């Protein structure tokens, strides 16, 4: 049978082990918490269906008629570097995507992940660019700019959809903001980039 001294030694050891894990990690403060760096590593066409558009006057073989445009699934890969001596949590990351200088999509990743001190994680964010949705967006937000360019929305979309795999025009990431947390403190990192890089 163990003595009371032995029992308390075990309890103390557990307490030290539990407490020690936290104590060994340097604690972030408002002064020491540096904003992690986010950079665009690459962009790829994750899945591709070519270019097509069916107006709602076209009767489909199955399903209901509507204005349907080819989807485009793009994946954006970011390097997220933690320059701190303590782990930080990436809480969310969002950015706007522009084809050339036309804003087409706003993407958001809300999956959290911890980044060890001094290490770089990679985050992949998928964005679905729907043909019809992009057309409406282009007509509304980019309507005046297209008019000045002398191009209609369909022609512009077809050009983008059919050449994106060859990297013929810049896909710009802009207005990026990534929210990081550590021990209740918050840092927001801004980022932008282009692929192919200029």
């Amino acid at each position: 049978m163990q003595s009371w001294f032995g029992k308390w030694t075990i309890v103390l050891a557990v307490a030290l082990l539990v407490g020690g894990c936290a104590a060994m990690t340097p604690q972030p403060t408002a002064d020491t918490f540096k904003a992690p760096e986010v950079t665009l590593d690459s962009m790829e066409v994750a899945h591709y269906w070519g270019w097509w558009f069916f107006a709602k006057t076209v009767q489909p073989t199955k399903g209901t008629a509507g204005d349907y445009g080819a989807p485009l699934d793009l994946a954006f890969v970011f390097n997220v570097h933690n320059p701190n001596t303590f782990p930080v949590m990436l809480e969310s990351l969002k950015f706007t995507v522009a084809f050339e200088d036309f804003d087409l999509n706003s993407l958001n990743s809300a999956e959290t992940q911890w980044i060890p001190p001094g290490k770089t994680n990679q985050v992949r964010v998928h964005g679905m660019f729907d043909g019809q949705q992009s057309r409406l967006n282009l007509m509304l937000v980019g309507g005046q700019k297209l008019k000045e360019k002398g191009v209609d929305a369909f022609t512009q979309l077809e050009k983008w959809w059919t050449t994106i795999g060859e990297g013929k025009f810049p896909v710009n990431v802009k207005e990026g903001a990534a929210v990081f947390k550590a021990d209740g403190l918050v840092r927001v990192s801004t980022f932008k980039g282009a692929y192919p890089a200029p």
Partner: protein
Amino acid sequence: MKPKRSWWVWLSIVMILGWAAGAGAADEINIGALNDMTGATSDVGKDYALGIAEAINYINDTGGINGKKIKLFQFDYGYRIPEALTKYSLFKQKKCVAVLGWGTGDTEALAPTVGKDKMPYISASYSGHLCDPKKAPYNLFFSTDYSTQARGLITAWFDKKWPKKPDFGKRKPRIVFAYMFASPFSSASIKAAEDQATMLGFEVGPKQDVSLFAIDTKSQILAMKDFKPDVVLHTNTVMSVAATIRDAYALELGADNIIVNWGFDEALPVLAGKAAEGAMGCAPWAFFGQDVKLMDKVKEYAQKFNPGIPLEKRTIHTIQAWANAMGLAEALKRADKAGDLTGEGILKKGFETMRNYEIGLGLAPVSFTPTDHRPQSKARIYEYKDGKFVMMDEVDLKARWPEKWEKEWLGW
């Protein structure tokens, strides 16, 4: 025989479990948000979406819902109704207690479902149709509804501008409506506008079908010229309104412009240039950066969470988002205090207990009762003058026409 565990083993287990629990999530309330950042209304929807996330961060940083944090599930549905329906199902699976919705499309498509589910749905569709609790009991918003806006705009122009016109007292004033006929959003307030104009003695001209995507509206302006209107009411979003008033200016239509909120924002003078001068619009909230309660926090959180977007690019739509988010938070706090965070509890013990509740943000006080979900009867009218938005009138429809407000105007 089962061995008896010693006290010190239990103490060690409790310590480890206690540490692990401390590292886990605190009590959370799940809220869904549907936004359009890429679709047909993204010209105004993107800024609204940013505002929703920033406001929720502010609410969480200032104590949450009586100590409980809000977990926001925010999605861009691109103004595609099937996607809105799918995301709504996801919100239910995530046990969201309320939804911050967006436009007329998703709001009207979901209205019967949210009523059946008893899911409070606070949207940026301010249609008067959503204000009758008999028809849409769980649809709410923190704004002047479109019909009250249109009535207020017509009244303000009639009171302040018409008496200064050379033909005042000689003939009836003439009004034309410019909007997209096929859009439920654009046409939501036209019936009320026509009623108000007729009541005030206007001659109403042929309605003009202007697409939300219009960049050239010369044919509609030429059609208006035959009628010689004194004033044009616009109920589209800002891109289309800017194109219309620009063409009206170029073709010397000579009419004043009165605009419902989505067409009257900081982008209007940028897009329409000189043509925007003198335009009147209904803005239930302050414009971004104006000196009103909570604006310092709106600016602080915009800079903190979206530092890549300059403040000069932010608009009144951020303020609209804050109004809806703050209004929902207040309802949740009241319901939580009453110990009932069910959908019905949030409606009855939250929203419907608000009487002249002041959020700040330049929004007039808000009330909801079990029989009337029109948040307010005051339409705040601004004029774009010398490069600034200046408040020129506040029309209180309930005070001016109490019987009609009470008995006739609810729900359309």
